[in-house]
């Protein structure tokens, strides 16, 4: 606009071209690898736009500076572009297709990415999300968002805690470790008492009518319950040893509680069938109990966190501070 140096329209000084190219190289450099593919086309269009703008000017360094200044710093442009191609809200992660490993098939959500404590946490406990059924943490189908369930049952309000479980005192967080450990001890006692006397072949699967329909050696009947229990405890141990967030630690405890109690229930049913039980009088209540115990654990800890938060604020209220 103001540059007085007359240059043929459309031909840029090498110095000016170098400035434009350096600018776009910096934008590319600032882009996340994940976003660079989707942004490439946009950036090509922008680069063409810049040269077009410059073609109408003398094309001096000052002109280049002015045109590039309109686009803002390269880092900001990169961030804007990445924002435009990526879903900014993580809560939509499962609604939008993040990768081929998760999405919807014939109306059924699937998730094949290895479960992380963070993902378990955000699916199992998000009281702010009104959906009770959320895409399964791993596999096909749905999991229960216990947070939404608690809100729906009137046990809490969606914003009862700022950050889930963050205000729960450490000693109470340990409850989420103790519960799966207690269930594991129960399984251990059952195995110690009954494994020896069990017959060589035991029931490991029951049909819808409650009649055992698959049998295996008593040794192999132990494999799945023990593997699930070990996996559950390993997830908890990893969350604690790596000092994950309280939400991740509690969620891993909930996952372990669920896995350990399902394991103990299945083994108890195997024992009961071997001792003459003709129905699944342990399995069904046991599975329902696993859900209830997990739910109760999450709700109880959340209530403790909520109470701590309220106490903190009401104690401070004389000072009138707002956090």
């Amino acid at each position, binding site marked *: 606009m103001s540059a007085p140096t007359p240059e043929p329209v459309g031909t840029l000084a090498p110095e000016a071209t170098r400035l434009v190219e350096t600018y776009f190289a910096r934008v590319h450099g600032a882009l996340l690898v994940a976003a660079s593919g989707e942004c490439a086309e946009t950036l090509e269009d922008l680069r063409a736009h810049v040269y077009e703008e410059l073609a109408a000017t003398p094309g001096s360094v000052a002109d280049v500076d002015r045109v590039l200044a309109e686009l803002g710093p390269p880092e900001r442009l990169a961030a804007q572009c990445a924002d435009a191609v990526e879903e900014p809200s993580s*809560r939509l992660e499962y609604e939008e297709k993040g990768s081929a490993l998760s999405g919807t098939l014939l109306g059924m959500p699937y998730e094949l990415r290895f479960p992380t404590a963070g993902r378990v946490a955000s699916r199992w406990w998000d009281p*702010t999300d009104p959906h009770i059924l959320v895409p399964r943490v791993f596999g096909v189908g749905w999991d229960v968002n216990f947070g939404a369930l608690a809100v729906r049952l009137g046990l809490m309000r*969606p*914003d009862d805690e700022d950050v889930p479980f963050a205000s729960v005192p450490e000693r109470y967080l340990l409850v989420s470790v103790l519960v799966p450990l207690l269930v594991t001890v129960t399984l251990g006692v059952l195995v110690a008492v009954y494994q020896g006397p069990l017959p060589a072949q035991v029931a490991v699967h029951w049909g819808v009518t409650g009649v055992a329909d698959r049998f295996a050696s008593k040794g192999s009947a132990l494999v799945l319950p023990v593997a699930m229990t070990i996996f559950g405890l390993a997830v908890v141990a990893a969350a604690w040893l790596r000092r994950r967030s309280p939400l991740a630690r509690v969620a891993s405890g909930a996952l372990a509680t669920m896995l350990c109690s399902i394991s103990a229930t299945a083994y108890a049913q195997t024992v009961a069938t071997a001792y003459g039980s003709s129905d699944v009088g342990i399995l069904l209540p046991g599975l329902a109990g696993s859900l209830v115990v997990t739910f109760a654990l999450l709700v109880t800890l959340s209530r403790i966190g909520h109470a701590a938060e309220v106490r903190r604020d*009401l104690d401070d*209220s004389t000072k009138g*501070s707002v*956090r």
Partner: protein
Amino acid sequence: MGNDTDGRLSQFRKGVVELAILALLHRGEAYGGEIVERLAGHPGLAISAGTVYPLLSRLKKAGLIDSLWRESPVGPPRKYYRLSVAGDLEFTAMAKAWEGVTDAMDELLGTEVTR
């Protein structure tokens, strides 16, 4: 196609609802249920508790709003939200940007469509 339109509408509304919450809190502090109720009074925004609470949580994480538990005259304590200093600045900037957008859109769509 329908899904695409819904998706775009929801993206579009998300930004607007955020500004709506900031605007409401700019007038004074309010608790969650109150925010939901007052925003629900504007059917055009199509806001429900399911939209408000995740946004409140996000705004709080972003440091734009603060919250404080207060005794309630009826029932259990309530969590009150109010704009932080950063939220106040953000609201002013967003409201200004919004004005620019509505002016431009009014002109593009024709005032008889938008008014």
